[in-house]
């Protein structure tokens, strides 16, 4: 079937049944549950090692009260990284290209950190609105600016993920379209674009993993401020 450039971003539906649920449930099917064995197979060993490393890395600077978020953030990280990397395969739908879903992740989690901070230590949380060592005249302006930056955080989180992935996918589609068109007319140039595509694919793999990591890292930073 002929594809336009928008088809990869449409929320898939088969005969009226939305398939986005299947796309979202894919990461759950890919990772095995920890077994009762002491020594596991390679996949489970690597998975456990990765979770341990990641959780240690993210939660080292956060105090003990924030460690309650460990399961949430680790599972979020795994979810995002799987969705992103699985979306690089052809003919797949990447849920994280949808702004609605990313905002659905970003806003509640960000709001949770803010509310947590405001409830448990309001003075400390409000103190973050004014960086240390500002000149006295700038204080009102700076508070307004910091408040704006606070409220822009969820928007930034969601849009960052969406934009990165959408842009990456779109670029891959465009360059591969160019390659397929040039293959008929100017094959040598097609080789060039194919090389570009290869490098772009490598970049996209990296970006997919990095963006997921950055999302969770920023959330952990917001948590660190507020807990």
């Amino acid at each position, binding site marked *: 079937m002929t594809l336009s450039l928008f088809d990869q971003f449409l929320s898939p539906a088969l005969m009226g049944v939305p398939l986005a649920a299947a796309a979202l449930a894919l990461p759950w099917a890919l990772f095995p549950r920890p077994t009762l064995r002491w020594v596991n197979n390679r996949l489970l060993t690597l998975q456990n090692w990765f979770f341990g490393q990641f959780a240690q890395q993210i939660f080292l600077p956060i105090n003990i009260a924030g460690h309650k978020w460990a399961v949430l953030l680790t599972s979020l990280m795994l979810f995002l990284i799987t969705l992103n990397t699985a979306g690089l395969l*052809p003919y797949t739908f990447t849920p994280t290209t949808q702004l609605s879903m990313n905002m659905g992740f970003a806003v509640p989690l960000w709001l949770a950190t803010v509310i947590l901070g405001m409830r448990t230590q309001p003075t400390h949380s409000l103190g973050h609105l004014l960086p240390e060592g500002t000149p006295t005249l700038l204080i009102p302006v700076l508070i307004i600016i910091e408040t704006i930056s606070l409220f822009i955080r969820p928007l930034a989180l969601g849009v960052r993920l969406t934009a990165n992935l959408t842009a990456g996918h779109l670029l891959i*589609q465009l360059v591969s379209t160019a390659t397929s068109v040039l293959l008929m007319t100017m094959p040598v140039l097609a080789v060039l674009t194919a090389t570009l595509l290869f490098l772009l694919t490598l970049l996209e793999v990296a970006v997919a993993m990095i963006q997921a990591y950055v999302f969770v890292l920023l959330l952990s930073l917001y948590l660190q401020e507020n807990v």
Partner: protein
Amino acid sequence: MPHTGGPQDYRQTQTGQTAPHSLQCRPANWDKTHHLDREQCCVSTLSVILVALQKGTERPKQGARRTGSLKSSGPIGAGLVQASRSLQTSSQSLAPVPPLPEHGGKVRHGLIPEELFQLLYPKTGVTGPYMLGTGLLVYLLSKEIYILNHETIAAISIGSVIVYGVKNFGPSVAAFADKLNEDKVAKAQEVKDVAMSSLTQAIEDEKKEQWRAEGRAMLFDAKRNNVAMLLETNYRERLHMVTNEVKRRLDYQIALQHLNRRMQQEHMINWVEKNVISSITPQQEKESIAKCIADLKVLAKTTQAKAA
């Protein structure tokens, strides 16, 4: 009357029929048909309820009590029992698990599992899977079931990245995972080895201590001898000292006696000499001097004669 399930299945009436009845104590003609009075009815109903509750909450044994239990009664009986069983706490989860395979799954060309090739080998030989792949691809393309578009190029690109990754980093990642497991096992093994070596060391130390305990008797004998010798030496020293002291005192007495005697003698001699000297008259003195001179002359003459 709908089949309500529950305790009625194993509740038999007095007449031996499993007639369905509600949990109400007294339908209209029950006394006549079942010959029970009120107390018996209530007790039997309560016992039925209690048994039903007990059966609902107990952990079902493996395959036992299939007949007449809550599990097999009614459309949701099994689900109720399974829902009340909490995860991983029954003895089923303590059963030994089957062992893991020695090696991980093999893939050919980075993506296709080796099992496909093994599956097709008896019938189609070595080139079977490749022919299958080529034929399938050609079929899909020619029938336009799969259309070549830009996604194909993207698929080739990402496919090559994946195959490259699997082929180049696959063995090292597998070795890393194996090393993680081996380290885990090695740590436990080390604990066991350390415990064993410390226990064998303790056994040897104990044996050495026992040997030492045997030698202790010799040590005590030597010490006893030592002490006895010291005592003896001390005793003899003191004896010696006593002897010396006694001798000294006796010597003193002897010296005193000697001194006394000598002084007496000297005194006597002096007195005698004094008396003698005082008794010598001058007459006698002259006679004696003259005699001495005459003797000397005679002597001189004889000496000269001898010399000549």
